[in-house]
């Protein structure tokens, strides 16, 4: 079922959503499932923060910005989104690849 929704939208070579307007919460669930992540309320807190931040600044927030902005510790972010939280959240939230180094 989630495969269906993923095949209706375009992703770039690295797995980021090409057209931000295609994003829906259902799509986020499907992308997360593809990444092996089952979204919880805490995941959504991070996703919503990142989408809001990106809407304000036009850029995906960096890991530190997410940690400072949400108050969720670095440790927990790595548990929620293993192996690179900033990039994984950006993919799931339908945002561009984060550019900052920190």
């Amino acid at each position, binding site marked *: 079922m989630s495969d269906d929704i993923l095949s209706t939208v375009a992703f770039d070579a690295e797995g980021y959503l090409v057209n931000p307007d295609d994003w829906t919460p259902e799509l986020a669930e499907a992308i997360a499932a593809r990444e092996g992540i089952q979204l919880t309320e805490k995941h959504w807190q991070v996703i919503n923060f990142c989408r809001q931040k990106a809407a304000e600044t036009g850029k995906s927030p*960096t*890991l*530190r*910005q997410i*940690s400072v902005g949400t108050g969720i*510790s*670095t*440790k927990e972010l*790595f548990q929620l989104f*293993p*192996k*690179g*939280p*900033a*990039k994984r959240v950006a993919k799931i939230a339908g945002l561009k690849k984060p550019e*900052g*180094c*920190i």
Partner: protein
Amino acid sequence: MSENRHMAFICSKGNLDMAYPALIMGWAALGNGVDVTIFFTFWGLDIIRKKTMDRLKLPPVGIAGMRTGMMGLPVDIGIPQIMGVLPGMTEVATALMRKKMEELEVPPISEFLQMLQDAGAKLYACKMTVDMMGLTQDDFMDGVEIVTAGDFIDKTEGAQIIFI
């Protein structure tokens, strides 16, 4: 699944500008899902010593890239090396770099190292240098483990090693 990519940094220098490369690249590696180990030896130990970690300095002598433009002056020319030995020049250069780093949202060393540890990086202090400098475990930030060079080699089997 195949073994995860692993990068190991060896920090042998303790000047402020030599602390950031491993921390920034290590952080980037963790953000890309790569395992990170950092080994601190010789002057690099200052980076993880509680007493010195947030007081690292940037002495301008020997850095050809130091320019007046960095000081916010309108004319961008190289700063003669002889100027670097004048009293206060190290403090000026250090303060300048700290300010620039802050503007780029780069956290202070102690906070940065905590972030790295929270993200899963392993930090080791070189036992021989620790002994040579008469230091003990208490001198280092929490989470640092004192290991021998041999232990470090064991722990980084298969890793990509970067010497700084």
